[in-house]
C-alpha cells in the first residue's frame, strides 16, 4: 500500500505544489528571526510610511517594520497550527486505537465523548476561554487540539476494527502478545497515511482558527499574527496601504492554508480505495 501510494503521489501536481509551499513556509517559520531586518516590536520608525529600500513593505501605524512583522506572524501562525495539529493527532490516534482494540464499554464511552465534542463548535469554547482568562497561545492551541481529535479517532478506530481481524494481528494475539504490545507494534505502525491526512486536516483547521481569533482580537496584541495584521491594516483601508500592508498577510495566510489543503486533498484521493478506484479507472 505504501509503495503504491508514493508512486501515485509522484504524478500528482497538487501534492507537489502543496508540499513545496509547505517547505517554503516551514523555512520562513524557522528562519524568521534571522531573516527579519528589524525587531518587529521596535516602534522607532515614522508611522505609515510607504515602502523604501530599508523597509521593503513600509512601516505600520505603530511605527514597526511590516516585513519583520510579517515574518514573525508567519512563524507564530505556523507554530500554532503545528502544535495543535500534532497534539490532536496524538490524542486521536491513541483514543482511536484503544477504542477499536478494546471495544465494549471503553469503546462506547470514548466514542460517546467523541460525538459530544464533535457537536460543540470549537470556536465558541476558544472565545470563552480567551476572553475570560487571557491564556498564552500554546494553551489555546492545546485546548483546540482537545476539541478536534474526534474525527481522527473515528477514522483510526474504523481501521483498527478491520486490522483486528487480519492474520498477522491474530497471530500476534495467539502468540500471547499483550494489548499494549499489539497496539504499539502492530496497529499504530500500520496506519501511516491516515495520520498524514488527519494531521493535515487538523493543522489547516488550527491555522484558520488562529487567524480568526487573532483577527477578532483575542490574542495578546504584542504577539504578531497574520489575522491581527489584517485587522489592523483594515482600519486604514481608505489610505494607500493595500499592496504593502494589507495584501502581504492576506497572501501568506491564503498560501499557507492552500498548501495544506492541496496536500490533504491529494492524499485523501490516494488513500480512499473506493474513490481511488473510481477516479483512476476512468482516466486511465
Amino acid at each position, binding site marked *: 500500500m505504501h509503495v503504491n501510494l508514493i508512486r501515485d503521489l509522484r504524478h500528482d501536481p497538487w501534492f507537489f505544489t502543496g508540499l513545496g509551499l509547505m517547505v517554503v513556509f516551514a523555512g520562513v517559520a524557522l528562519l524568521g528571526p534571522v531573516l527579519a531586518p528589524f525587531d518587529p516590536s521596535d516602534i522607532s520608525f515614522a508611522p505609515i510610511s510607504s515602502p523604501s529600500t530599508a523597509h521593503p513593505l513600509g512601516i505600520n501605524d505603530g511605527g514597526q517594520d511590516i516585513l519583520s512583522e510579517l515574518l514573525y506572524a508567519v512563524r507564530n501562525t505556523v507554530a500554532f497550527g503545528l502544535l495543535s495539529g500534532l497534539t490532536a493527532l496524538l490524542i486521536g490516534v491513541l483514543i482511536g486505537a484503544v477504542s477499536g482494540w478494546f471495544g465494549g464499554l471503553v469503546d462506547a464511552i470514548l466514542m460517546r465523548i467523541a460525538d459530544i465534542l464533535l457537536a460543540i463548535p470549537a470556536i465558541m469554547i476558544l*472565545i470563552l476561554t480567551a476572553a475570560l*482568562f487571557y491564556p498564552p497561545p500554546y494553551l489555546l492551541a492545546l485546548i483546540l487540539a482537545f476539541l478536534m481529535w474526534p474525527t481522527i479517532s473515528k477514522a483510526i478506530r474504523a481501521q483498527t476494527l478491520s486490522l483486528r481481524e487480519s492474520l498477522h494481528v491474530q497471530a500476534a494475539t495467539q502468540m500471547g502478545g499483550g494489548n499494549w504490545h499489539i497496539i504499539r507494534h502492530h496497529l499504530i505502525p500500520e496506519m501511516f497515511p491516515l495520520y498524514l491526512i488527519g494531521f493535515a486536516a487538523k493543522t489547516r483547521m488550527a491555522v484558520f482558527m488562529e487567524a480568526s481569533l487573532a483577527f477578532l482580537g483575542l490574542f495578546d496584541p504584542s504577539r504578531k499574527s497574520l489575522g491581527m495584521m489584517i485587522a489592523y491594516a483594515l482600519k486604514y483601508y481608505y489610505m494607500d496601504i493595500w499592496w504593502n500592508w494589507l495584501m502581504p498577510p*492576506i497572501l501568506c495566510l491564503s498560501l499557507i492554508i492552500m498548501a495544506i489543503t492541496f496536500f490533504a486533498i491529494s492524499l485523501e484521493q490516494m488513500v480512499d480505495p473506493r474513490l481511488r478506484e473510481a477516479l483512476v479507472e476512468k482516466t486511465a
Partner: protein
Amino acid sequence: MVSGPHQTAGMLSQVITFFLAALTMVYLSYALPRFLPGDFVTATYAGANVTLTADQEAGLRAYFTQDEGFGDYLLRLATLDWGYSYAFLTPVSDLFLGALPWTLLLLGAANLISMSIGFVTGVEAAWRHGSLTEKGLVGGMTVLEGIPEICTGVILLIVFALNLQWFPAAGAETAYSDLGFFSRLIDIAHHLTLPLATLVLAYFPGNFLLTRNSMMMVIKAHYIETARAKGLPPRRIRYAHAARNALQPIVTRFGLRLAFMITGALVVERINSYPGLGTLLFNAIQARDLPVIQTVVLFSSLIVLVVILGMEGVYRIIDPRIRHAR
C-alpha cells in the same frame, strides 16, 4: 438493512448525545467564570473601554460573587434573564435577539445557495469525468477551498465597495431611510450581497468537491447501469437515480464543517460590519463586556446543536433506504 427499532434507537442515541453536548456548553458557561482568580471585576474592567459607576461596580461584584446554584442559573437562562451589558447599557437578551435574525438570514442564505450550487455543479462535473471542464472545475475549486474567508472578504470589500462602489461597505440596511416594503427588501438584499458572496465562495468549493467525489463512487454502481440499459434520459439517471445517493455525505459532513463555517461567519460579519451576532461578539470582546460574550457564545452554540440535530432528522425522513426500512 436498518430495521425499525434500530432506527428509533439510533435517533434516540443521537438526541442523548446532543443533549449532553448542550449540557456541557451550559455548564462551561456557568462554571468557567467561577474559576477566575482574584477580583474578577477589577481584572476585567480595569483596562477595558467601559467606565463603571460605583453602583454598577458594586452590582457586578455582587453578581459575580454570589453563590448561584446550577439550577438557579438554568432558570435564569430559561427566563431570558441573561444579565445586563455595561458597554451597551442594554439587557443582553435585547442585544442578542436583535442581532440573531441578521445572522440567521446571512448563514441560512449562504448555506442554501452554496449547497445547491455545489451539489448541482458537483453532480454535473462527476458526470463529465475526464473532460476539460471537469478538470478545470476541480482545479479551480481546490484553489478556492484554500482561500480563507478573511482573505476573500477583505478583497471583495476593497474591490466592490471601495473601488467600484457597487455595494455598501457596512450595515444591513440604509439607516433612517423610510422605505416602502419592497424597496426595503431590495435595500436589505443589496447590503447582504457582499457578506453573502464571501460566505458562498468559502462554503461552495467544499460542497462541490464532496458531491463530485461521492458521485464518482455512485456512478459505478450496478443500478446506474440498469437505469442506462432501460434507456432512461441521462438527466433522470443523474438526478433521480444517482445524485440522491450522493446527497448523504453533504448532510453528514455538514456537522463536521460547522466549526469552519461558524468561525468564518464571525469574521465575515466583522469585515462587512454586518449587524449580526459576529459583530456583536466582536464589539463585546473589544469592550470586554463579559455578560454579552457569555450569552452569544452559549446561545449560538445551542442553536448550532439544534440545527445539526434537525438536519440529521430531516435526512432520516427523506432517505428512502431508511423510510422504507420496515
